[in-house]
């Protein structure tokens, strides 16, 4: 629920409750007041009649308001106040009245007075009061709502501005400051803390990025020297076969070391999210071209790659990472496939599936995604390929699953 909705809801409920209770109390108070006024009037009338009788002896009747009759003394009872319905001749209809029945002995006669006052007035008054109060309530609530909305929006504006600023934040920016003019202390504190956090995040990121780049440089430069010296060496026209064999091994190792370093650095960069650049790429095309590159080396093992690729599978990712993902997956499948087998690669708009025959593996297939973990320790692979694959999948929330049964290895990636 949005912030304004919640505050509005609470305001509304509380205001309405307050008004309703207030209205109820008003209604009750006025009702009681009117009643007591009515009773007072009935008693006043009674006193006037009594005074009349005592002074002039005449019985003044005014039906239906005043009715007097003589009764036997023995019938005398106490005062009773009740509500009745009486036909009013002047209004020509039956109306509700409050009636005071009072017995009084004056002189030698006992009179029964029935004094009445009509109740319509009371119910009319109450009706009007209810309408006025009700209308006032509605008007006040609406006004409250409008004022609340306007005020809330203004007051919370800095907060929303902070949120939209945060949405823009990305670690690889060089600088990021949240700016909001606000005199509200809590918001100022919030801004200050957030700027601290984002500042730190940016600094850490830059440090790590520089580190990985420097590490790369420090390692690759001497490797370059080794490789170049070896390459220069083999240009010697007097090169002997025995020398060539030695150099071949040395070159292979240098090459392997260099690839290993690059892979490790890639993993570090993936960890610290140094690939913010993304664009919409055609995965089908990238996969096809990676497979293309590996077809010939695969043929050496008589491994045939069967492609079942749906065209036009688009995703928004970093194109370099997409290439790396597919390259490592396909190369892994081909490398571990025994000779004379087929590797099946399927791609559709939902998922990528690679199936290949491979060595039996009794452990948890998920271990294969760990760095340097190799099912076959003697294999010449670096053991990092699948780690890279997993990290790239994690980065883009692609669910990856590795099943091994009966020596059939199947990797599924939900895109």
């Amino acid at each position, binding site marked *: 629920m949005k912030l304004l909705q919640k505050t509005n809801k609470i305001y509304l409920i509380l205001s309405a409750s307050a008004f309703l209770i207030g209205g109820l109390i008003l209604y009750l108070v006025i009702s009681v007041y009117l009643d007591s006024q009515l009773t007072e009037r009935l008693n006043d009338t009674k006193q006037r009649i009594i005074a009349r009788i005592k002074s002039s002896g005449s019985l003044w009747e005014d039906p239906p308001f005043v009715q007097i009759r003589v009764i036997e003394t023995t019938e005398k009872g106490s005062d009773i106040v009740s509500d009745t319905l009486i036909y009013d001749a002047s209004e020509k209809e039956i109306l509700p009245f409050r009636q005071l029945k009072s017995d009084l002995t004056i002189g030698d006669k006992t009179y029964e007075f029935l004094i009445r006052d009509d109740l319509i007035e009371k119910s009319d008054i109450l009706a009007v009061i209810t309408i006025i109060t009700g209308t006032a309530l509605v008007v006040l609530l609406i006004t409250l709502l409008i004022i609340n909305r306007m005020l809330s929006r203004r007051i919370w504006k800095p907060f929303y501005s902070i949120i939209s600023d945060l949405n823009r934040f990305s670690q690889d920016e060089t600088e990021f400051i949240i700016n909001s003019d606000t005199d509200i202390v809590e918001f100022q504190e919030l801004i200050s803390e957030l700027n601290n956090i984002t500042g730190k995040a940016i600094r850490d990121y830059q440090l790590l990025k520089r580190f990985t780049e420097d590490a790369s440089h420090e390692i690759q430069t001497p490797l370059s020297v080794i*490789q170049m010296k070896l390459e*220069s060496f083999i240009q010697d026209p007097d090169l002997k076969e025995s020398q060539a064999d030695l150099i071949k091994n040395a*070159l292979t190792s240098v090459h392997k070391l260099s690839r290993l370093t690059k892979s490790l650095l890639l993993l570090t960069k993936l960890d610290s999210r140094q690939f913010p650049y993304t664009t919409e790429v055609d995965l089908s095309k990238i996969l096809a071209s990676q497979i293309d590159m590996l077809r010939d080396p695969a043929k050496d093992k008589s491994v045939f790659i069967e492609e079942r690729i749906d065209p036009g599978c688009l995703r928004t990712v970093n194109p370099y990472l997409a290439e790396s993902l597919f390259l490592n997956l396909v190369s892994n499948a081909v490398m571990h496939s025994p000779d004379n087998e087929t590797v099946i690669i399927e791609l559709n708009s939902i998922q990528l599936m690679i199936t290949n025959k491979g060595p039996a593996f009794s452990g948890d297939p998920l271990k294969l995604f760990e760095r340097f973990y190799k099912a076959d320790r003697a294999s010449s692979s670096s053991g990092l390929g699948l780690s890279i694959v997993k990290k790239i999948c994690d980065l883009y929330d692609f669910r990856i699953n590795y099943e091994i049964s009966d020596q059939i290895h199947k990797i599924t990636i939900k895109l």
Partner: protein
Amino acid sequence: MKILIIEDEHTLAESVADYISEHGNICEMAFTFLEAEDKLVINEYDLILLDITLPGGNGLDLIPLIRKFNPRCGLIIISAKDSIDDKISGLDLGADDYVTKPFDLSELNSRMKSLSRRRFNDGSNEIVFNEIILKSESSEAIVNGINLDLTKKQYEILLYLMLNKNKVVTLESIAGHVWGDIAADEGRYDFIYSHIKNIRKKIEERKGRNYIHNIYGLGYKLCEE
């Protein structure tokens, strides 16, 4: 061609200089930012190799200077950083290519040759070695006037060898250049052998001589011998 190598690692600079110093190429070297600046202002070069991790300044800052004093020269950035940001900035600023260390000398050489052909279009887009003629526009290979009908991969291999003529090119280097880095990891290069075999056969069928020599299983060399 006059070439300037801007690289702080001496041995590296010298290795590259040795390799590319063929007949007609003059190589100069600069080991620091300031040295490079001086040389750029005084001389004109046809091709510049720039290492962007230089002491005394960021190599990328040299690019505008290069473009100012040597607007037409080819510029290849070499770097150990493999940083995409640098790559993009470098190419944006006006570099023609970006190569990451460590690289094969033959790879670097082939890129330099391609770049110089593009830049200094000396009228022909042909690479010639005796009776073998490669036409880069149409990716055709012709021997004694007859088309070799090479596949795309075979053409790439032959082109790579021709650009690095008289040099031993390792199998790894060929695999890396034509098929990509990972293919060079596998360690098995039979597929290259079979391609070379086919290339040789096609040349022989057109009465050409075989110039492709296997050097002890290390790699191949295209030369007279």
